[in-house]
């Protein structure tokens, strides 16, 4: 186990190193950053001077070495627009995004577990067909469009829920969260449901397929013969054995949720790091784009690592090499 952990940690570092290389070299094609920094009235001589001062006259691999050195010290550059460290800007907005993602996960699990188990246990029931049709529709609809429909119906037409911003926040452990206040909670409902829809639909289909697979196996027949109640049969025997692939996909889904949070946050003007990314893309604020990618890459690598560890906990049959 320890040997495996050490090997995985080295792999994680290798992946992050590769990501930093790719991000750096691809971003270096995106136009001249000097022009973003100097005032528009700068003369050619001043531009050249700024280029030397910033080290941008050096060959790319020298620039990369500097970039990597700064990265390891936690210095990801200063935003062109906000004139503040990119890392700070992203870390400030991270709680908002994580809060949104967390609520989306809660919503998807709360709906997908019962629906998926039901549709898998009774595949020919009319209700199962409705669930499956609904989930197929759920993976087919563009999430940004769903968000627009929600805004139009719940905010513009009915005036029930707010459509933009995060509302009032309250501080917990020194971090501001919206869901702690009534106003903030009202703000989180629409974006969280919008973000949850894709994951929810996908999880229903996955859980159903897994349950169908498990229900065919002998230990289920045996449990039924033994007289185990349906509730215990489904949720203790079947679901537990169906969970391994669900956990894998779930790990990937957390990543997808963080990625799609960019879309949801843009629609609902949710002040998270996803909206910051989209805004920065539109204003060519390169340090923020790079910082976002490095931080999110580190998060994904860590999530994948955790997923592998969780495997062994829920299924001792899996042997880590």
């Amino acid at each position: 186990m320890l040997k495996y952990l050490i090997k995985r940690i080295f792999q994680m570092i290798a992946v992050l190193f590769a990501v930093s290389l790719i991000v750096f070299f691809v971003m270096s094609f995106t136009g001249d950053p000097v022009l973003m920094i100097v005032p528009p009235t700068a003369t050619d001589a001043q531009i050249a001077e700024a280029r030397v001062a910033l080290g941008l006259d050096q060959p790319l691999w020298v620039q990369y070495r500097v970039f990597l050195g700064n990265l390891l010290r936690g210095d990801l550059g200063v935003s062109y627009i906000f004139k503040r460290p990119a890392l700070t800007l992203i870390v400030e907005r991270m709680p908002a995004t994580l809060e949104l993602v967390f609520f989306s996960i809660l919503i998807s699990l709360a709906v997908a577990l019962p629906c998926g188990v039901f549709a898998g246990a009774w595949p020919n029931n009319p209700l199962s067909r409705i669930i499956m049709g609904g989930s197929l529709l759920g993976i087919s609809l563009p999430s940004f469009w769903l968000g627009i429909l929600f805004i139009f119906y719940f905010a513009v037409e009915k005036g029930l829920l707010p459509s933009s911003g995060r509302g009032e926040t309250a501080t917990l452990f020194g971090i501001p969260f919206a869901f702690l206040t009534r106003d903030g909670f009202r703000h989180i409902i629409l974006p969280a449901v919008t973000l949850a829809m894709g994951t929810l639909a996908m999880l229903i289909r996955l859980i159903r397929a897994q349950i169908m697979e498990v229900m065919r196996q002998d230990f289920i027949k045996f449990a039924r013969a033994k007289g185990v109640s349906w509730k215990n049969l489904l949720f203790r025997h079947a679901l537990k054995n169906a969970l391994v692939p669900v956990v894998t996909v779930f790990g990937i889904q957390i990543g997808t949720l963080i990625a799609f949070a960019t879309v949801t946050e843009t629609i609902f003007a949710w002040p998270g790091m996803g909206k910051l990314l989209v805004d920065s893309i539109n204003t060519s604020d390169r340090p923020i784009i790079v910082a976002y990618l490095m931080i999110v890459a580190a998060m994904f690598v860590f999530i994948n690592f955790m997923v592998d560890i969780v495997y062994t906990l829920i299924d001792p049959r899996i042997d880590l090499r």
Partner: protein
Amino acid sequence: MKNRLGNFFRSELFHNFLRNPGAVIGLVIVIFFLVMVLIGPFFTPQNPYDIGGLDLMDAYKPPMWMDGGERAFPLGTDEQGRDLLSAMVYGSRISMGIGLIVVLLSCVIGTFLGLVAGYFGGRLDSLLMRLVDVQLSFPAMLVALFIMAAFGRGFGKLVFALTIVGWVLYARTVRSSVLVEKKKEYIDAAKLIGLSPFPVIFRHVLPNILTPLIVIATIQVGTVILTEATLSYLGVGVPVTKPSLGLLVKNGYDVLFSGLWWSSVFPGMFIMLLVFGINLLGDFLRDEFNPRLK
């Protein structure tokens, strides 16, 4: 050819297809969209790209069944007097075109690399699969978003970004199928009669691993259309002069609060319907080709 067609209509696949209402609906939707994008532009009231044909007097018209709507603009107009239905027909053309090109490219590239990696194994195989693993641990949307953010909007770049994201799925699936196939006797037989590796791969291995490819490719058309729509919505997809369905939704959203709900609702409905049809078909094919479910 005629004989083959006859065989198809008598086949189990076709028989099951007719008995599966979801699959039939899916095919009807897909055919509807194909016909629409192929011949639709001859029938649309306007050419939405022809700025000269627009009249600002027609702006902000609601759909024809509402007060103030006109028969000439069945689904209403936008703030420039552009007919929404015409824009949607042209937009579907762009969305479907990108979807098909990307799937074709990623299928060809991914299948080729998967075949080679699986058949020859060794260094190339482990390098390629490591790459696939790393890429699959990042959400496709984010990778595509990053590429588009770096290179800017445009059709070529969009196809490039979506193909980079798409090929890995084929490579992985093909490789694992090849690993199974190459242990079989007919491959030994093919090698024994003196065929060199590439004829063995393309004439003997490839035809036997086609079924999972068909399923992935079908479903991927829908995924690509959705991803393209999302990127265009975020403003990093297709150029503004040639709006796809996703960009139409975005343009519609910009005027949603001035009451023009139709210009974001209808294009989005088109995306959903199209992708839903493709997914219905893909689901049917997957169940048909999955021997475990029979």
